[in-house]
């Protein structure tokens, strides 16, 4: 069964686990019968409200991001960390709900996880600005 539902990326408690994927569970069957289509349409109709809610949530979080950036959290780095946390929550909402990653096929998850690992490698490179493990040099920061 490859209809794995990784919930860890979804911060919203969209409690009912479901799949937006139009693909039938039995991939071998070919014809979308009228019945299938109607069932799918009803399924989607039930989720329209959720899309609006997530959208409104994103707008609210945008306001929160702007507001928080004018709060002094002690240092600029602290503000950056707070801002990035909110941005990550927003991005997860877009990916999980709008992009249907919540309930997406494992095939897609597999190579997205690989992409994530490589992207993290890319970001890790920036730490070499602090210290060079090959020469053992440590560059002090300001």
């Amino acid at each position: 069964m490859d209809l794995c539902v990784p919930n860890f990326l979804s911060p919203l408690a969209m409690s009912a686990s479901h799949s937006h994927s139009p693909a039938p569970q039995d991939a071998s069957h070919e014809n979308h019968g009228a019945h299938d289509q109607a069932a799918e349409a009803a399924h989607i109709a039930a989720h329209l409200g959720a899309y609006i809610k997530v959208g409104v949530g994103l707008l609210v979080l945008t306001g929160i991001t702007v507001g928080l950036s004018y709060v002094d959290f002690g240092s600029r780095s602290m503000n950056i960390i707070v801002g990035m946390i909110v941005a990550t929550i927003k991005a997860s909402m877009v990916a999980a709900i709008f992009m249907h990653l919540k309930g997406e096929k494992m095939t897609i998850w597999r190579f997205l996880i690989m992409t994530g690992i490589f992207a993290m490698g890319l970001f890790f490179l920036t730490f070499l600005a602090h210290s060079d493990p090959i020469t053992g040099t440590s560059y002090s920061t300001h």
Partner: protein
Amino acid sequence: MSNLITKYFPFFTDKEVPHTVSARPDTGLYSAKLGIWLFLASEVMLFGGLFSAYIFLRIGSEPGYWPAGLLNVPVGTMNTAILIVSSITVVMAWAALKMRQLGKYKLYMLVTILCGLIFLTVKLSYEWPAKFNHFGVFIKKEAASKYEDFLGNKHLQEAGQNPRWEISGHLLDAPKGSHYAHQAEHNAEHFGHETGRHDAVTPAEDDYVIQLDAVNANPTDKNNDRPHFWPVPMSTKLAVISAADVESASVFAPRHSTYFATYFLITGLHGLHVLGGILVFLYLWLPFPGGTKLYKTNPEHLANRVEIAGLFWHFVDLVWIFVFPIFYLL
């Protein structure tokens, strides 16, 4: 000709291609879905590289050389909201097609396209030009004390803030033969009357004359220590700066600083993505064979095309969710 198109670009036609609707048995997905996610994975690496460069440059920048509060936050917030709304409408457009409501689909798609166009228009006709019309000089550190009235570094040091090395505003006079002499002349005509500059100062031939931003006009004002949400109107005060004291002088363009170099690169690439999304949406919205005409023969196929284009659009929105805070707010 038409044969060539069908052969090499079948997606521009209504020709049957396998697994546009039904799932491939091995992947469990219709093929375009797999394709778009592979493409988005490569996009993650593309933008990831640029964000990584941003972090590298920012960490490595000397104190006082990474500016804050130079962008218009209310306008940026509005543009963020517009992109989010377009993300909602595109998913609604897809849902409408799934429910076989062509009229609603067309309406939602139209709103999406308009949102994208507003976003680009604001960026290209307002935000960017406002920057190209703004000018800043970085003062050499050894000459900074001469310009303390505009930099306020004693005050900043007491407040525990990074030093300030830049004096910015509208350039009203540039050194003779300078790259910016023409722009200065143009600005003097447009803004000079506000300041009555000819009475106020008599610059030498190699001086810059700048109508100051509020932050340089009152550098010791505590209110200027942190950026404001609403842009502060420019002062009518003038600064006369000798070219010999200037480390670098530039309009707010990529050459100005690493900040603006990364800003224009990343928002420019993002803008190109918005443009690409709009073009694809237009294609799917108009009665092309692969656009709304496809609805008559295979509505599910059209719905899938909209889903794919929507996935790309959501990704573009997702990138902006990070671009907005790192350049406008933090």
